[in-house]
Each structure stands twice: as structure tokens, then as C-alpha cells.
């Protein structure tokens, strides 16, 4: 639930200057550039951005899920529980994964192993991380399935993923991610593959769980509607960078980056006024061939300056707990900070 000024709290996860590069045959792809953000305990951070903007790569870089090669996490720090996850040994990292940080992926159809039953897959992290006995793990698995709203949980433990519908598989994925009471849950577009009615069920579930369990959640999506419904704070990504970051109401009410603005204008709604013509962001997303030396959005931007071609804007404060990486100040109608 979005609420007033948050009490000053240490972030659980603090990412500074993250940089990830893919080495491909066609050269390097700078998928994530100097990404800095944090989440506080109990907070739900929404991440939006168009396809290919680096959302998934950012999150997977955090806990070393990217296959290397081709991925190469070049720089930055990821502070979690006093460790820099980018520098710790693999054993600690492994314990963090699944144990302290849970992950839910986009496609529930392929993210579960088709040849193991659901019970095994839920119990696996419990036994590996918490050292539970088989029966304890089983009891916990049933509890988890009930928690995510799967009826008749005890019986369904023996079922295989293909015997579940898409929505239920996504619940199972969430149950797996929650198994070891993680401090942070990262959900990478967990509802994109689902129908709206099912998505609504899952969103309701997550809201519920957050109240019950009080963990921090990072929620990736490209659906602004979803963000508006559940996030406390929103981070907008474009071209491998964070271009804007603000509390949810602030962002929707007072967007400070032209991309955010354009995005908000393009999406039609089912309620309210219906424009005759949809607004369009012209052009294509940038190619991430090198570290950008200019604003990645400049080709599609309506507020473009000379400076945008010369310099890649830094994130500058644009309000309370609000920053944006743009030289244009929408409040003054001129260059920011000038």
C-alpha cells in the first residue's frame, strides 16, 4: 500500500553502478549501463520499460544467474546483508539465491521442470537451504501451496507441472520463491503470460502475501496498469539505463522524463476518456552496441537539445525521492539545473 513519507530505513538491497555486457559474435552488447537503485524492507519496487531495456538482465546480474560467457558483469556493487553479491564466493551466492532472494520468472509454462513433480520442486530449496527433513519439507510445501491459494494442496504435490493451468503454475513458482522466507522477492514479468482475470488473481495474491510476510519485492513489468496497482516506488528503464525513479503517485502524476511521459500517453485505458488517436512514440529503441555517449532516447524525444547528442544525462533529483535522467525540466520548461 502506498503511504506517506517512508521512515528512514536501511535498504535491504543496494545496487550501485551495475554494468553488464554480452559478448556476441556481432560485438559487445551493453545491456545494462550504470544502473543504481535500492529496495527497502517491505517495499514493492516496480520496474517498467520496454522490451529489451535491460530489466531482466539487471535482475539476473544481481545474483549471478546470467550464463558467463556470454554475459560479463563488469562493474558495480550489489550490497545485500552486508555482502557484495558480485564479489562473494559462489557458495555464499548460492545460499543467497533461493534462500534469501526469491525469483519468479515470466513464463510459468517453461520455468518449471517438466519431469519432476511440483512437490519435489518446492521441497528442493527447503531441503538444500534449510536442511529440513523430508517430512518437514513436505509439510512446509503444503503450507506454501495453500498460502498461494492452491486448493487440495497435499494431493497436488504429486502432480506434474503440465497438470496445472498457467495461473496455477505461476502460483507454484511463487511458492518456490517464497519457500525459504526470502528477504527480497524478484518477480520478472510474472503475469505477462497470463490472462487478465488470472493476472488479477495473482496481483491480489501478491498484495496479500506482502502484508503477511513483509518482504521487499521487485516487480518487473511493462504494464503500467499493474505498476499503478501494486507498487510503492517505480523505476523506469530505457536502453539499459534507469531513466526515472519515483514513488508511484509522483511518477504517474508528475513524470519527469520524456519517455515516461510518452509511455503514459500512449496507453489506452478501459475507463475514462477515449482519445480519437493514440499517441505514438516514433522510432525504434536504441541498439546497445557501446557505452552510450549521448542520451539513448534522443532519437525519439520531443524535447531534444543539442546537449542530448553530446552527453548522456545523469540522474538528477526532480522532487522528493524522485530523480530523472533528462536535461529537460518539465517544471521550468527549460534545461534542468540550468
Amino acid at each position, binding site marked *: 500500500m502506498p503511504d506517506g513519507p517512508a521512515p528512514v530505513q536501511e535498504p535491504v538491497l543496494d545496487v550501485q553502478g551495475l554494468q553488464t555486457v554480452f559478448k556476441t559474435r556481432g560485438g559487445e552488447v551493453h545491456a545494462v549501463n550504470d544502473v543504481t537503485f535500492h529496495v527497502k524492507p517491505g517495499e514493492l519496487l516496480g520496474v517498467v520499460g520496454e522490451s529489451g531495456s535491460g530489466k531482466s538482465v539487471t535482475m539476473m546480474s544481481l545474483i549471478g544467474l546470467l550464463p558467463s560467457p556470454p554475459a560479463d558483469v563488469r562493474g558495480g556493487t550489489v550490497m545485500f546483508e552486508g555482502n557484495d553479491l558480485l564479489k562473494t564466493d559462489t557458495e555464499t551466492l548460492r545460499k543467497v539465491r533461493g534462500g534469501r532472494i526469491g525469483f519468479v520468472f515470466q513464463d510459468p509454462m517453461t520455468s518449471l521442470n517438466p519431469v519432476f513433480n511440483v512437490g519435489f520442486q518446492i521441497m528442493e530449496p527447503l531441503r538444500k537451504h534449510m536442511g529440513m527433513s523430508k517430512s518437514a519439507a513436505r509439510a512446509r510445501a503444503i503450507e506454501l501451496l495453500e498460502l498461494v491459494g492452491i486448493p487440495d494442496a497435499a494431493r497436488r504435490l504429486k502432480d506434474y507441472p503440465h497438470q496445472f493451468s498457467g495461473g496455477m503454475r505461476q502460483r507454484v513458482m511463487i511458492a518456490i520463491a517464497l519457500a525459504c522466507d526470502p528477504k527480497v522477492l524478484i518477480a520478472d514479468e510474472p503475469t505477462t503470460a497470463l490472462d487478465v*482475470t488470472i493476472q*488479477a*488473481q495473482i496481483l491480489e495474491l501478491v498484495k496479500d502475501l506482502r502484508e503477511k510476510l513483509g518482504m521487499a519485492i521487485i516487480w518487473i513489468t*511493462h504494464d503500467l496498469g499493474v*505498476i499503478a*496497482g501494486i507498487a510503492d516506488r517505480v523505476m523506469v528503464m530505457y536502453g539499459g539505463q534507469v531513466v526515472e525513479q519515483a514513488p508511484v503517485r509522483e511518477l504517474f502524476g508528475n513524470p519527469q522524463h520524456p519517455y515516461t511521459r510518452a*509511455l503514459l500517453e500512449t496507453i489506452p485505458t478501459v475507463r475514462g476518456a477515449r482519445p480519437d*488517436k493514440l499517441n*505514438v512514440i516514433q522510432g525504434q529503441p536504441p541498439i546497445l552496441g557501446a557505452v552510450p555517449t549521448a542520451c539513448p532516447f534522443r532519437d525519439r524525444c520531443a524535447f531534444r537539445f543539442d546537449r542530448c547528442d553530446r552527453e548522456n544525462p545523469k540522474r538528477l533529483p526532480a522532487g522528493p525521492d524522485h530523480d530523472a535522467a533528462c536535461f529537460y525540466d518539465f517544471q521550468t520548461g527549460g534545461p534542468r539545473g540550468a
Partner: protein
Amino acid sequence: MALDEQKQPLVRVENLKMHFPIFGGLMRRRVGEVKAVDGISFDVFEGETLGLVGESGCGKSTVGRSVLRLYEVTDGTVTIGGRDIAHAPPEELRQMRTQMQMIFQDPQASLNPRMTVGDIIAEPLLEHRKMSSRELDDAVGGLMDRVGLNRNFAKRYPHEFSGGQRQRIGIARALALSPKFIVCDEPIAALDVSIQAQVVNLLEELQETMGLTYLFISHDLSMVRHIADRVAVMYLGRIVEIAPRDDLYDRPLHPYTQALLSAVPEPDPSRESTTERVILTGDVPSPSNPPQGCNFCTRCPQVIDICRQIEPEFQEVTPGRFAACHLLDQKPESAAKAPSEAT
């Protein structure tokens, strides 16, 4: 009936059924069928866009494909421009194909990866029109211009294009024979939000300039609201409601429509928190084994006894608005009002 008077139905679908057989048992006999589409009727008027929405697997694509007779339908008739498609002999059908075209969901999958863009767009022309290669070149160039593609790219291959551009190629191919009627099967579902708007605008623009008629299949209710004139809502192989767009979005009649609309997230946090949602429980039943009575009875928040026994009739509730729900039979006068309170 205001619309009816102005426009003629271009497409008339009556009692369309499409059942896919299931084989099983010891001798691989036919043991049942997937009732993907189970007796639906609707009209599409000339120059309008009929939106078709519903959850995944409810049979939208099957409707679209059956209408173009890409499947041999189990039962029912489809007439386009007065000619029966569903039972036309092969050669006649081939002729009629020039009248109707389709745009597909996945712009990657719907383009043959081994043909150049020029060849892809030229294919319908090669099949149906006799043209010299020069004329063909020009025609392809013209089509590419029209959908906003650089005609110099005709010799490139689909994988060299972005998603939005690929969808434009698909549109150009559909337009090649100047059809009257185009089925758009989720043409924007695979595209990024920022690109979706470009394609939708293009479709609208083409409709205006060429007088096209669309059957626009989507599960994105907000896009349908934007593009469609009338909207049909499907659930498990049946149409539960058809209404003009504004009526439907403002005052949905069928409980399913209501739930569907309320499930759409609102991209506005201030309004979001005030919205009261109808959250459906459970999943869509299997189309091979639909529930008795009303298809929606297993998930309906307003279910009453009769729903579990008798299938509601699809009927005109108010002029131009059709729905299939027992609740509407019982209190016809308040039916139109009740849902609006829920919004």
C-alpha cells in the same frame, strides 16, 4: 438498430461450430471433441471493426480462422459479401480469398524466414493476379510505402526487421489483394507497448482510406476499446455478449464481461486504489468437457441454480446489445443498471 440501417452486414456468421476431434482408447477411436467454437453467430458490418475479446483458449483464433475457412467448420454458415464461404468448392474458395485476408499474432512466425520481404508481399499477387515482374515490383513498392516501410528493404529477410516492422510486412501482405475484410488475430499482442500504438494507428488509418472491415481479435481490452466499433466477448467457445463499444465498456451486462473489465489494471494509482474489483476464482474449464448449463457457471460470482442446468439463450437485450445470461431474463429492467453500480 441505428447501425443496421446505415450499414449492410458484410460478414454474417450463423451458428458456427468448430469441434476438434480427440482420439484415444485402444483403437484410437474418436472419443470426444474439443468444442473450440460451439455455436456462435454474429454479423460484421461493412466498414466497421468488430472486436473479439476473451481469455486465452476461449476460441477466438478458431473463430477467426473458421470465418476465413482455414479450418473446415463442423457446422454453421459463414457468408462474406453474400457468398457462402463455409461450403464453397475449392476453386471458388480460391477466388473468394482475394476478398478476405488475415493478419497474424506473431509477426515472426507469420513470415517465412526464407523468403525476402518483397517475395512475401508479392506472393498473393503471384497467386491471383497476372502481372509482369515490373508491375509486381511496383505493386510491392506501393504496398510497402503504404504501410510505412522503406521500399528499398524489399530484398531483405524478415529477421532483419524489428517486431513492429515485421507486423507491417504482414499487413502489407494482407492488403496486397485489396480485400474488403481482414481478420486481425491479436496483431499487437507480441509487440511492445510503444510499438503497439504505431500498428493500431496504421490499421485505423488504412481502414479509413481503404474502407476496410476488421474482425479484431485481442485480449487487450483497452486496445479493443480504442479500435473497435462493436465488441463481442467470448467465453469457452461461446459469445456471451455483443454490444457497441461504449455501451459495453460503460455498462457491461454479462457477469463475465463485468469481471473481465474490472480485472484490467488501471494505469493510474489514484484511481486504482478506489476501484472495487471482481476477482474471479478458479480457471477456465476445458473446452473438451464444458460444464453443464451456462459455461460460466463454475466461476460466476452471481451464479444461481438455473445456470447449472440450462444453457442461457443468446438474445437481444436492448437494441443492438446481445447477451446470454439467465440473470438478464429474470430482471430485464434492472439488468442494464446493476453492473454500472459495480464499476
